[in-house]
C-alpha cells in the first residue's frame, strides 16, 4: 500500500471513538430518557444514508476489480504497486477465475468502460506492461511470450509486439526486430502502428539492407505523425546505401527537411547535413548547416567540430582556428579535444603564424604531459572507487552510451503519456491514439547532466575524460547483460521492500482494528452500566409497586364486594316486588302476566346467583386482574434482563481478553507473512549486492583499460604537439623563404 491515509483514517477513527467514550462518561449525568436513540440528530443522519443490501458474493468481480486497480496504478505512474498486485494475482489460485470469465460481462459494473470481464490475457498484458515500465526486460519477455500463447490476447499484440521490437533493437538483435516486424499485428482499427515500421527500417539499416529500410521508412512517412520526419532523415541516409561517395544524393534529400525541422530533431538534421556536405566537399554548405545547430544544445560540440574541419578545408584558416580552439576550450572532456587543439595549432601554422603556432604547440604538449602525469598518478583504487560510485548512483550507463557525440543514440521514453494512452486503449479495446512524441536523441549534454545530478557524486579527482572514451567492445556487450541484471535486482528489492511495508502496514491496521475493538468494549461497558442503572431503578420501582398494588387489590376487592351486596339487595327487592304484583293479580291475571312475572322472577334470581358467584370467587378474580399478571411478567423480565446483563458483561470481558491477547501477539511478534517478506527482501538485497559487485568489477576493469588507452592517446597527442612545435620552429627558421610551400605541403599531410 503506497497510498498514505489508510492508517491515518484508522487513527482518526480511534480518536473519534475515544472521544465518544469520554462523552458517554459525561453523559452519565444526563437522564436516561435523553440518551435513548431516535433523537432528531439520529434521524437526520439516517435520512442521508443509503443502507446497502447484503453484498453479493462474486469472486469474478473481486478479481476483475483487482486488475482494474492495477490498471489505474499503471496509469498513475505506480508500476511497483501494480506489479505487486499482479504478481500476487498471477501466482494465486484466483487466476483460475480469469480463465472462466474471459470476455464475459456477468456481474460486472455497467457502463461502456466495464463492458466485459477481465481475462487471463488482461492479467498478462498488465503484468507485461508493469515489467516493461520498470525496465525488467527479462520478465517482460517471459510474460509477453506467455501472453502470445493465451487465447484472447490478439488485441494486445500490436502494443506488446512494438515493445518487444524496441527491446530487441536496444539489445542490437536486429534480426529479431525484423522477425517481430513481420508478426506484429494491426491495431483494432486495422492500421499498423508506425513504430514497428520505424524500428523495422532502423533494423534493416543497421543490417545494411538499405532498400528494405527505405521501404519501411516510406511506410512511416506515408502514415505521417511524429515518427515521419525521423523516417525522412533515415531514408536520406539509407539513400547513400552506406557509400559516403553518394553523400551528395542524401544531402539533396535532406535539404528540404533541414529547412523546416526544428528543435533537437532540427539540430540533428542540420548536423547530419553538415557532415554529408563535408563528405561531398561542399564546405560552405557544411559550415552553414553546422552553424544552424543551436550553440547551447546537446549536438553543439559535434557541430562545432564539423564546422572547424569544413572551414579548414575551405581554407578559412582564422575561422577554422577559432572553431577548433573554441571546441577544445568548451569541451575539454571529449576525446576530440586534442585533435581540435592540434588543428588549431595547425591552422595557426598554415596561417603564417609559425611563432604563435610553436608556442601554442609547446603549451599543448606541456598541458597534455601534465594530464598524462596526473592520469598515471591515479591509483587503481581511485578508479575502482569511481566505478563503485557510478554503479551506486546507477549512472554507469553513461560510460557505455554509444555515439553520444553525433546523436545516433535514440531513446523511446516508456512512461510517456502516449504510451499510457495506448495501453489504456488496448485494455478497453478502443482505438489507440497516435503517438504524441517522437524518439529522444541522446546528446553529450544529457550525459553531462546525468553525471552532474547523480548521487553520490564522482570524486573531483576522478578523470572524467574516461567516461567519454569509447568502451571496449567486449565490456560494452557484457555491460548490457550485467546492467540489466542489476536493474532487475533493483526492482526486486523495491518490490520486496514494498511488500514488507505493505505487510507491516497491514499488521498495523490489524492492531488498529483490535484497538478499535477494545474501545468498543469500553464503550459497551459504559452503556451496560447505564442499562444496569435502568434495571436497578426498575427493581426499586417494582418493589414500590408491589406495596401500592396490595392496597389497590384491597380497594378493588372492597368495591366489588359493595357491588355484590348491592346487586343481591336489588335482586331481593325485585323478587319481593314481583311477589307483591303476583299477589295483587291473584285471580285476575291472564296467563301472559304469569309468564312475564315468572320471567322477571327468574331474572332477579339470576342476578342474585351471579352476585353470589362473584362473591365466592372474588379473590381469584382479583388475582386475575391484568395488573397483577403484569407485575409477575415484569418480574420475569427483570430476571431475564439481569441474566442478559451478566451475559453481556461476560461477553465484553471475553472480547476484551481476546483482543488483548491478539494485540499482545501482534505486538510481540511479526506475522509469518511479514517475516517471509523480510526474508525475501534480504534475499533480494543479496542478489542486488552481487549484481552490483559484478557491474562494478566490469566497469572497474573497463575504466582501467580506458585509462591505459587514454594514456596512450595522451602520449601520442603530446608527441604530436611536440612534432607540431618542431614543425612550427622549422617554418619559423626558414621564414620567409619557402614557408608557404612548406605549409602547403604540411596541409596536404593533415588527415
Amino acid at each position, binding site marked *: 500500500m503506497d497510498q498514505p491515509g489508510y492508517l491515518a483514517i484508522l487513527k482518526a477513527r480511534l480518536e473519534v471513538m475515544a472521544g465518544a467514550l469520554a462523552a458517554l462518561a459525561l453523559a452519565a449525568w444526563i437522564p436516561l430518557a435523553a440518551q435513548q436513540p431516535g433523537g432528531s440528530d439520529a434521524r437526520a443522519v439516517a435520512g442521508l444514508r443509503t443502507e446497502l443490501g447484503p453484498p453479493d458474493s462474486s469472486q469474478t468481480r473481486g478479481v476483475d476489480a483487482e486488475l482494474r486497480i492495477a490498471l489505474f496504478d499503471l496509469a498513475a505512474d505506480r508500476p511497483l504497486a501494480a506489479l505487486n498486485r499482479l504478481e500476487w494475482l498471477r501466482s494465486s489460485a484466483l487466476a483460475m477465475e480469469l480463465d472462466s470469465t474471459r470476455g464475459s460481462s456477468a456481474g460486472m459494473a455497467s457502463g461502456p468502460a466495464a463492458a466485459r470481464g477481465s481475462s487471463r490475457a488482461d492479467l498478462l498484458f498488465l503484468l507485461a506492461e508493469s515489467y516493461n515500465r520498470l525496465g525488467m526486460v527479462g520478465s517482460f519477455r517471459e510474460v509477453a511470450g506467455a501472453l502470445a500463447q493465451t487465447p484472447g490476447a490478439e488485441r494486445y499484440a500490436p502494443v506488446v509486439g512494438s515493445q518487444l521490437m524496441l527491446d530487441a533493437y536496444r539489445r542490437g538483435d536486429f534480426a529479431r526486430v525484423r522477425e517481430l516486424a513481420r508478426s506484429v499485428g494491426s491495431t483494432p482499427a486495422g492500421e499498423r502502428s508506425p513504430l514497428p515500421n520505424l524500428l523495422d527500417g532502423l533494423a534493416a539499416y543497421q543490417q545494411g539492407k538499405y532498400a528494405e529500410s527505405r521501404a519501411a521508412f516510406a511506410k512511416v512517412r506515408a502514415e505521417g505523425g511524429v515518427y515521419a520526419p525521423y523516417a525522412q532523415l533515415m531514408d536520406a541516409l539509407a539513400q547513400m546505401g552506406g557509400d559516403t561517395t553518394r553523400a551528395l544524393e542524401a544531402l539533396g534529400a535532406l535539404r528540404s527537411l533541414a529547412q523546416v525541422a526544428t528543435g533537437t530533431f532540427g539540430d540533428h538534421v542540420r548536423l547530419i547535413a553538415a557532415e554529408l556536405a563535408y563528405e561531398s566537399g561542399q564546405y560552405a554548405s557544411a559550415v552553414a548547416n553546422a552553424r544552424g545547430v543551436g550553440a547551447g544544445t546537446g549536438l553543439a560540440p559535434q557541430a562545432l567540430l564539423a564546422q572547424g574541419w569544413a572551414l579548414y578545408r575551405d581554407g578559412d584558416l582564422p575561422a577554422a582556428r577559432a572553431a577548433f580552439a573554441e571546441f577544445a576550450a568548451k569541451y575539454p572532456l571529449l576525446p576530440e579535444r586534442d585533435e581540435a587543439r592540434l588543428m588549431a595549432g595547425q591552422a595557426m601554422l598554415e596561417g603564417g603564424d609559425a611563432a604563435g603556432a610553436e608556442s601554442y604547440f609547446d603549451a599543448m604538449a606541456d598541458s597534455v604531459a601534465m594530464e598524462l602525469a596526473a592520469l598515471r598518478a591515479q591509483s587503481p583504487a581511485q578508479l575502482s572507487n569511481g566505478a563503485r560510485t557510478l554503479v551506486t548512483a546507477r549512472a554507469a550507463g553513461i560510460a557505455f552510451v554509444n555515439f553520444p557525440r553525433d546523436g545516433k543514440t535514440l531513446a523511446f521514453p516508456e512512461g510517456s503519456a502516449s504510451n499510457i494512452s495506448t495501453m489504456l486503449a488496448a485494455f478497453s479495446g478502443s482505438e489507440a491514439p497516435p503517438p504524441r512524441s517522437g524518439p529522444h536523441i541522446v546528446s553529450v549534454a544529457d550525459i553531462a547532466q546525468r553525471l552532474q545530478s547523480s548521487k553520490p557524486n564522482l570524486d573531483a579527482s576522478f578523470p572524467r575524460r574516461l567516461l567519454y572514451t569509447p568502451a571496449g567492445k567486449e565490456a560494452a556487450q557484457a555491460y548490457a547483460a550485467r546492467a540489466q541484471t542489476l536493474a532487475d535486482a533493483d526492482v526486486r528489492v523495491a518490490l520486496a521492500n514494498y511488500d514488507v511495508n505493505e505487510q507491516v502496514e497491514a499488521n498495523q491496521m490489524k492492531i488498529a482494528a483490535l484497538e478499535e475493538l477494545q474501545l468498543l468494549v469500553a464503550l459497551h461497558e459504559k452503556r451496560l452500566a447505564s442499562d444496569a442503572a435502568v434495571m436497578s431503578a426498575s427493581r426499586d420501582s417494582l418493589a414500590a409497586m408491589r406495596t401500592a398494588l396490595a392496597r389497590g387489590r384491597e380497594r378493588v376487592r372492597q368495591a366489588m364486594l359493595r357491588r355484590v351486596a348491592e346487586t343481591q339487595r336489588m335482586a331481593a327487592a325485585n323478587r319481593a316486588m314481583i311477589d307483591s304484583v303476583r299477589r295483587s293479580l291473584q285471580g285476575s291475571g291472564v296467563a301472559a302476566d304469569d309468564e312475564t312475572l315468572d320471567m322477571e322472577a327468574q331474572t332477579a334470581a339470576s342476578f342474585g346467583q351471579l352476585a353470589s358467584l362473584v362473591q365466592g370467587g372474588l379473590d381469584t378474580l382479583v388475582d386475575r386482574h391484568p395488573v397483577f399478571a403484569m407485575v409477575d411478567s415484569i418480574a420475569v423480565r427483570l430476571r431475564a434482563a439481569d441474566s442478559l446483563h451478566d451475559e453481556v458483561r461476560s461477553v465484553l470481558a471475553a*472480547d476484551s481478553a481476546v483482543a488483548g491477547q491478539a494485540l499482545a501477539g501482534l505486538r510481540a511478534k511479526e506475522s509469518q507473512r511479514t517475516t517471509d517478506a523480510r526474508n525475501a527482501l534480504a534475499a533480494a538485497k543479496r542478489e542486488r549486492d552481487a549484481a552490483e559487485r559484478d557491474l562494478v568489477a566490469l566497469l572497474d576493469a573497463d575504466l582501467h583499460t580506458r585509462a591505459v588507452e587514454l594514456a596512450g592517446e595522451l602520449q601520442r597527442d603530446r608527441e604530436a604537439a611536440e612534432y607540431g612545435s618542431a614543425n612550427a620552429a622549422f617554418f619559423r627558421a626558414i621564414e620567409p623563404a619557402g614557408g608557404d610551400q612548406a605549409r602547403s605541403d604540411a596541409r596536404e599531410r593533415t588527415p
Partner: protein
Amino acid sequence: MRMLRSWQLLVGALAVLGWGGGKLAAQNPDTTRAGGDTTSMWENQRVYEERRAQLVQQLHEAQSELSELRSDRVRVEARVDNVYAQALEQRARTLLMSPEQSALLQLDSMLASAQDRMQDQRDRMQALGDAVRRRSGAVLVVLLGADSLPDGGLSDVKVVLDSSGTIDRGYSPLAIEALQHGAVDELYRGELLPTSHDVFMTATVGGRQVERRVSVAVKEGTVTYLQFSVRNEQLVPSTWTSRGTSPF
C-alpha cells in the same frame, strides 16, 4: 347496570310529572261556573268570553311552563347522565387500577428497551469476539470508477470512513482517461471490524458537487468491495464480496 339506570330515570320523570300535574288540577273548578237569563246571557256571554280568554291565556301559560319543564327535565337528565358517567369512570378506575397499570407499562417499556439494547450488544460483541478468535479478518475496499464523465471531469474527491479521517483525491487528465477506460481507483483498503461501516463520499462531477453516504456491512473472512461509479453525474454505489482477493 341498565336496570339501575332505568329506575333512576323513572323516579326523576315521575317527580317532574307529579309537580306539573298538581298545578293543572288547581285550575279546574273555575271553568264550571256558567248559565242565567238573556240579559245576563250577554253578560254571561261577556263573562264567558272574558273567562275563555283568561283560560286561553292560562292555557298558553301552562303550555309555556310545560315547555320549560321539559327543558328542565332534559337538563336534569343530562346531570344524571353526567353523575352516572363519573361514577362509572371512578368505578372503572378502581377496577382497572389505571395508575398502577400505567406505571407498570412504563416500567415494562424501559426494561424491554434495555433488554433489546443488551441483546444487540451481546450478539454484536459476541460476533466480533468470535471473529477475532477465528483470526478471520474483514477487509473493506472502497473504489471509484467512472461509467460516464461529463465535461468538466472529476475532481475534489473526498472519502470519509465512519465519520473520521478523510482521503482526498485529485485526478490528472491521464488518471481521468484511465477511469474512462475502465480502471478503478482504490481509495481505501484496510482491515476493519466485521460490522457495519459508514462511508461518505463527495466529489465534483462536471463542476457540480455530488455526495453519497452509504452504510455497508463488512463481513468477516471476506473482502468487501464498495464501488462508487460516476454515472449520469451521480455517485452510484454498489457492493460485493470476494474471498482471498487481498494481497495481505
